[in-house]
């Protein structure tokens, strides 16, 4: 089911990830919202917004995949706590790129730890893993196309 355009901040994030001219439309899968990104007739990928709790505040992030279900990029849309905001840095987020739902994403192994931001690092890593798994499952079962 398609309905309207995504909010401005999400649209800006998708343009950053997929490049200018990428158009997003909003799909719903049961109670969840997925963004389908295309340029003209060609599908660029899908994205979804997730929330995890850091120490006491939600961290709002976006996960985008390409049509082959590989993670295109992660964006931290809103970070609300005074500490741990390093998870928003591109240099840290970029290690998720190219990962698929079958890949292992463990802090301290595939994903670098950030001393003093342990809670945020674990929360975002777990969140990305779950959204990546959801998007992949929905795409592979045809719930989104």
């Amino acid at each position, binding site marked *: 089911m398609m*309905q*309207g355009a*995504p*909010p*401005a*901040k*999400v649209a800006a994030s998708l343009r950053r990830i997929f490049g200018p001219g990428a158009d997003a439309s*909003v799909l*719903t899968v049961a*109670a*969840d*919202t*997925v963004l389908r990104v295309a340029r003209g007739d060609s599908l660029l990928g899908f994205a*979804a*917004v*997730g*929330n*995890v*709790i*850091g*120490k*006491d*505040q*939600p961290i*709002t992030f976006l996960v985008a995949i390409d049509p082959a279900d590989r993670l295109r990029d992660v964006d931290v*849309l*809103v*970070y*609300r706590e*005074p*500490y741990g*905001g*390093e998870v928003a*840095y*591109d*240099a*840290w987020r970029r*290690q998720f790129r190219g990962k698929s739902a079958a890949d292992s994403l463990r*802090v*301290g*192994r595939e994903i*670098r*730890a*950030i*001393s*003093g*931001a*342990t*809670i945020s*690092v*674990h*929360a975002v890593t*777990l*969140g990305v893993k*779950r*959204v990546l798994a*959801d998007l992949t499952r929905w795409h592979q079962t045809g719930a989104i196309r």
Partner: protein
Amino acid sequence: MLRAVQCLTLAGVVLATARPVVAQEATKESTTIGGYGEIHYTNPRGRNTPAEVNLRRFVVYLAHSFNDRIAFRSELEVEDAKVEGGSSGGEVALEQAFLDYRVSDALTVRTGLVLPPVGIINETHEPPSFNGVDRPAFDHDVIPTTWREIGVGVVGRLPVADGWNYRLYLVNGLKANGFTDAEGIRGGRQEGREASFANPSLTGRIEWVRPAGGLRVGGSFWYGGTTGGDTLLGRGTFDAPIAVLSADARYQRGPLALRAVVATVSVSDANTINSLYGSAVGSRIAGGYLEGAYDVVSHLSAFVRHERYDTQADVPAGTTRDRGFARRVTTLGLTFKPTWNTAFKGDYTLLRTAAGTGEGEILRLGVGYQF
């Protein structure tokens, strides 16, 4: 505090990202409960020194967000399981309790009982976050953790480049009448209890985090008077000043983790303090430690820490230096963390002093958690 991730509905996306601030503020009130704790088994070597088990800390973390900008955060601690009239040990205390007003990423105004941002352990003291059953001895005798005082300050990211953070607080001062030869400035903390504000003091920190992760380095200071209103020691705000300078680093790469902290505390009027209160406080308290840990197998790491510090690194004229306060503490141990926020620990500590007095060996076992 780690909860299930959920994909937001479209309404949720709008709420979190695009609605005007006023509408957001009306809908965001929420309360978070967390906690941490640690239980220790301590067995000093030798006859007539039986082992002891202790519920060292039980801490409840309670936070409340009034809206996207204003949050209250607190830690209520029970030390040593219970407090009973007339018996020593045991403490119920607030470790932190402050109101944060977040203006932007670069600026949060913080007011209340705060942690001076000195060293590593004072601000980050959840048991799974450090190796060893007990905190480093240095973080007891040189940096007096858990150090908390009442004041107002600002924290945030420095907008110069990625990775720079700062905190700066104006808080109540320390009181020199609590300073000691063995534990330095520790007894001078006021900890938010009817604290004298005769000596407003400044404390702060600048730190740099490598944006890709793996390295955090910081520099911290504390400066302020210590009269506590005792006019015999001085009448000025900055009379009998102490200055603390500290630097620290944390490095992680794959299975390897290193940390290092150094600090020096200058007590410029130690001579007056000692004659007034009959103490033997050093005019300089200094030291540091180095720690290396390696993940030998999944979730299990072995570590070694070497601390060297002296609470009488210098003494004022008229005070006899006791080399028994020049300590070398070596700790070897294992930390098993089945999850990132639970830890089973065991270690062996060797304490040596320059005088050869007060030496000993201690075996410790413990568990710690945070959530």
